[in-house]
């Protein structure tokens, strides 16, 4: 039985450590790979949108610690957990070189995920915008899926440097309208997500994940207009369990662990300058 202790262990779906198996490694544009993992020993545990996985990476002295990677999608039909990885250093490079059939030591699910409606009878007026930039779009796919399943009306606003930087566009389209911005204008509106008129639409809630300046701008807009807004942060972290206190974010409640009290925070909690 999971162990939950109010002052210390606030996770409602506590983590497990498991060797997941690599089902496929799909190469995506601009140095991204999609790792599709499965649990050979039965169903994947309850995983909430916005939660993340601490992945053990072996193969280089420069990749001593685990890598936190957000859950991109959970395909219950195929018992698959998807991780979308941007190859930027030794650790992610090693992940990109995994082969079908290899094992990956994962601790998951970790952290507090995005807001979810309490029951499926969601009032029709719940219109939710998910705003992502770069590889920060990753957790929004699963979140969109779960919101849609819960009866919400979802739209996505995805930004990238160029058209190719916007990943999984076709998958996002299954769950709602997709608005795009690119810095070079190769798709959607030219500029940043904050330049897109869709951001100004009537939303009851906004969630965002991506580069901090983008999230801060989106949160600023939402707070100004009184819209509930959540942000998913990706501070550098070590343990992933709230033990080492390395990944803290300054909040109105003091320094909180992004790994345990986050990665998703309500904009009102954060100190957005």
């Amino acid at each position, binding site marked *: 039985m*999971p*162990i939950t*202790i*109010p*002052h*210390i*262990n606030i*996770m409602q779906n*506590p*983590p*497990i*450590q498991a060797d997941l198996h690599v089902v496929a490694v799909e190469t995506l544009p601009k140095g991204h790979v999609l790792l599709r993992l499965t649990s050979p020993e039965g169903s994947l545990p309850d995983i909430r949108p916005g939660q993340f996985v601490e992945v*053990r990476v072996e193969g280089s*002295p*420069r*990749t*001593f*610690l*685990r890598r936190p990677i957000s859950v991109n999608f959970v395909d219950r039909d195929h018992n698959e957990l998807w991780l979308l990885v941007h190859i930027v250093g030794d650790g992610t490079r090693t992940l990109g070189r995994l082969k079908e059939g290899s094992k990956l*030591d994962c*601790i998951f699910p970790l952290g507090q995920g995005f807001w979810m409606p309490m029951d499926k009878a969601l009032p029709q007026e719940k219109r939710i915008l998910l705003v992502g930039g770069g590889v920060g779009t990753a957790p929004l796919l699963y979140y969109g899926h779960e919101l849609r399943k819960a009866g919400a009306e979802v739209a996505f606003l995805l930004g990238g440097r160029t058209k190719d930087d916007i990943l999984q566009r076709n998958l996002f389209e299954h769950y709602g309208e997709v608005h795009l911005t690119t810095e070079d204008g190769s798709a959607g509106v030219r500029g940043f997500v904050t330049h897109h008129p869709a951001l100004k639409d009537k939303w009851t809630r906004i969630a965002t994940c991506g580069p901090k300046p983008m999230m801060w701008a989106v949160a600023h807009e939402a707070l100004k207009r009184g819209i509930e807004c959540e942000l998913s942060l990706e*501070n*550098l*972290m*070590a*343990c*992933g*369990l*709230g*033990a*080492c*206190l*390395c*990944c*803290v*974010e*300054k909040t109105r409640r*003091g*320094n909180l662990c992004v790994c*345990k009290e986050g990665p998703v925070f309500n904009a009102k909690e954060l100190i957005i300058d």
Partner: protein
Amino acid sequence: MANINVKIGGLDLQNPVMTASGTFGYGLEYANLMDIRRLGGIIVKGTTLTPREGNDYPRMAETASGMLNCVGLQNKGADYFCKHIYPELDAFFHFEKRDIEPQPAIIVNVSGSSPEDYAACASRIDTLPGIPAIELNISCPNVHDGGMAFGTNAKAAASVVSSVRAAYHKTLIVKLSPNVTDITEIARAAEAEGADAVSLINTLMGTSIDIERRRFRLSIGTGGLSGPSVKPVALRMVYQTARAVNIPVIGLGGICCTEDAIEFLMAGAQAIQIGTANFVDPKVSEKIADGINDWLDAHHIADISDIVGSVE
């Protein structure tokens, strides 16, 4: 089954494996991932008399076979620990059953900014019946007031230990800094003032620079290095210290596997702590506790004390 019980001052540990302060939270964070009841000891995170916010983010940087941190003793203070954390630990472990069922020794790591401050914090912890020992942190490299300043000077170390010894009546472990010319001098000072044991090493002070931004990777510039990279230095200091003092030595610094732990025992440590390795494999401390037993059995050694300090 070899005998792997060890005694450190008044502590009677079911095995020599403890988790190091600051790397294992209050232990309960790991309860879903391993059986924390099977540990020899859990050193809970650094506690100060009054609450501390710690240093700004970023607080860590990965390095070759290790990491730097500058957390800076973020904690909610001794009162909060006594009122809120301690009862949760008690609810989990049932301290009253300590004599009839094996459980880890829960040890509080105590920090401060003056001898009086350390003593006041220690005497708060002294009131908790389930906490049989404290580890006095005179070696934190990440705070300006106190911490390592007390651990790099024998006189200053003596004054803190003496002050805490007067206020604290159970087992007193003093955690030593490796950032010194002669660690045995500090160890002897702690012993002379009544420490029951010393633990070493705390982190080596280091830094890392983000060259693109021309800024330190840590908010306060420097931090403490831990992980396998420091193991050779830690092992050398444990060896030197074990020969210099008559109180038990608890060894730590980069221990990642059973073989590492055995090295520390052979160098003279009576017990060991697992630190940074907990981040890589949350089950590692339990594995090492089992591993030590298996290693002794495979080598037909009946009692762990037969290998302590056995290196030639």
